[in-house]
């Protein structure tokens, strides 16, 4: 009987762990959230993506927009979460990759009907970095060639302009 109880206990624990892992660790994509907003509305979701733009402080909270796929979703965070985000994405930067656990709202009552996530927990998966502004040699060559040609055409135009038709 003890053995049977042990086997059941192990099986139950493994099953529970698997279920928890599935629910908590699998982030939902932005497309999936937007397309299935009725299903996810008011539920706890896990969302992962790059922090982009600005951290916008509002009282004891702040907004951060997190980009996943082709959509960025606004995350409403408490101010004590602010230090977890150091770099946000823009032209010169790849932002921190963040994972958020929070409540999804398809039309948030508190925020004028915006689609958003109210964060319960946010942590950094990988830090952001400065991206190099790589200058492509073929662009440099093209810029020189076309500039010289444009200059020659401009000079020729101003010479011919003075001649009567």
């Amino acid at each position, binding site marked *: 009987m003890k053995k049977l109880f042990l086997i059941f206990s192990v099986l139950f624990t493994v099953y529970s762990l698997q279920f928890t892992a599935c629910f908590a660790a699998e982030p939902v994509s932005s497309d999936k959230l*937007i397309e299935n907003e009725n299903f996810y509305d008011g539920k706890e979701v896990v969302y992962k993506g790059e922090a982009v733009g600005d951290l916008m*402080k509002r009282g004891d909270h702040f*907004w951060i927009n997190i980009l996943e796929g082709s959509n960025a979703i606004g995350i409403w965070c408490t101010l004590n979460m602010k230090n977890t985000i150091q770099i946000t994405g823009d032209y010169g930067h790849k932002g921190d990759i963040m994972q958020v656990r929070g409540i999804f709202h398809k039309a948030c009552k508190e925020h004028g009907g*915006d689609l958003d996530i109210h964060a319960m927990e946010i942590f950094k998966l990988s830090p952001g970095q400065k991206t190099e502004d790589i200058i492509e040699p073929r662009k440099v060559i093209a*810029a020189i060639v076309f*500039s010289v040609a444009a200059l020659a*055409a*401009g000079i*020729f135009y101003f010479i011919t302009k003075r001649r009567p*038709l």
Partner: protein
Amino acid sequence: MILRPQIDDVKVVGYYLGNLIVGIAIVSIIPLIACLVSSEWDPALDFTIGISISFLFGYLMLIACRTKKEINWTHGMIVVSLSWVVASVFGAIPLYLSDHFMSFLDAVFEAMSGYATTGLTLAVDLDHMSYGHNLWRHLIMFIGGQGIVVVALTFLIKAGGGAFKMYVGEARDERIMPNIIHTARFIWLVSIVYLVLGTLGLGIASTLAGMPFGKSLFHGACITMAAFDTGGFAPQSQNVLYYHSGLYESINIILMFFGAINFKLHYALWVGNKREIYKNVETRLFAITIVFTFFLTAVGLAKTGIYSNAVVLFRKGFYHLISGHTGTGHGTLYARQFATQWNELSLIGIVIAMALGGAVCSTTGAIKMLRVALIFKAFKQDVKQFLSAESAVIIQKLHHVKDIIIEDKQTRAAALIMLAYILCYFFGAIIGVLYGYPFLLSLFESTSACANVGLSCGITTPSMPWVLKVVYIFQMWAGRLEFISVFVFMGFLISAVRGKS
């Protein structure tokens, strides 16, 4: 008998287009400076290439097309219609080089959307776009809102008979001042005053919303250019939702509204004639159609039950209604939410608002209020005529800066343009349906493109069929120019083939 165009006709058109391309090159120096100031070296190269190609082609056309022939009405119309295509192609070069567009067609789509003040976008990864490229997207919208020819009239082309011929071709048949160059300069003066005020207003709003002040001003300038010019681009992928601010949306609404009113009305207000705003037929009708279309949208949204209270419903519904009615296209929803959240009635409200548009001689697109008023008054006149004695002469008037007696000629012109718009809305919708999109969503997107609005229900994406991209480019172009100059250009092409020499 249609005459085949002579080589000198082509030269006149080519000469003015050459001037325009040189103009594009000069304007492109502004984002180049922005790139240099913000140490964006690769984007600076994109603009250097774009500028030099534009100068090269512009000067070659000016050399090849020198002629003594004077510009006539047909030339004026063709120059205008081709100006927008040429400007989009040359304006697309730095955008394409930015790697934010999947093809050159996508970049041309973006540039046409900008110049035509539509706001539909095919940019990929907008959140990582450089300041320079983002400024360029909004600057072309600012230029397009005033009109490419208005820009040329203000800065490049000398006053003369040709000026008015091109001005009319650009869907601006109203002179605010007796001199057309002064009219063009007044349009610029008004726009720059609003740009300054809007930048400050939105800059302060976004600073209060938590953004750094310098960046707030940049975003404020971009959004003002897009809102006053009823464009709809924004520097971030979430459009105005990015700011999460009711104050920001409120200032945005004011700018969109001012962008949609007639420059003649701006002039009346400028010279202190405040009563005109209440008396003008366009503002009155605009108020009526806003109430009517908002009623449809609000009832539709109330039926869906997505917005839990009236304040939230008003904020979302009214913002998008004004954005659609003024032809702006700014949004605080994800494109697909129109399809997944909003019901048919609420979408119909927005589609009607988009289809009607704002005032004539404004920066908005679509049918426009004055035409709707003219047709409505003509109907009223006909009904009164039937009810009166046969010998009675019924006169209908409307007030647009001054009292105008309605004539059949005006009504006919208004009805023809209205018909052209309606046919164009349905043409795009049918193409969308052919590609498998539901009818209402296809009509929504097609109306948005043709009326130069920019709201999207998710059809406009980089992965949409190329045919649909071409159709929307055509709609944005023809809709912005109100068809006539585009039809004249097509007639010119036909006459080149079938005309008598």
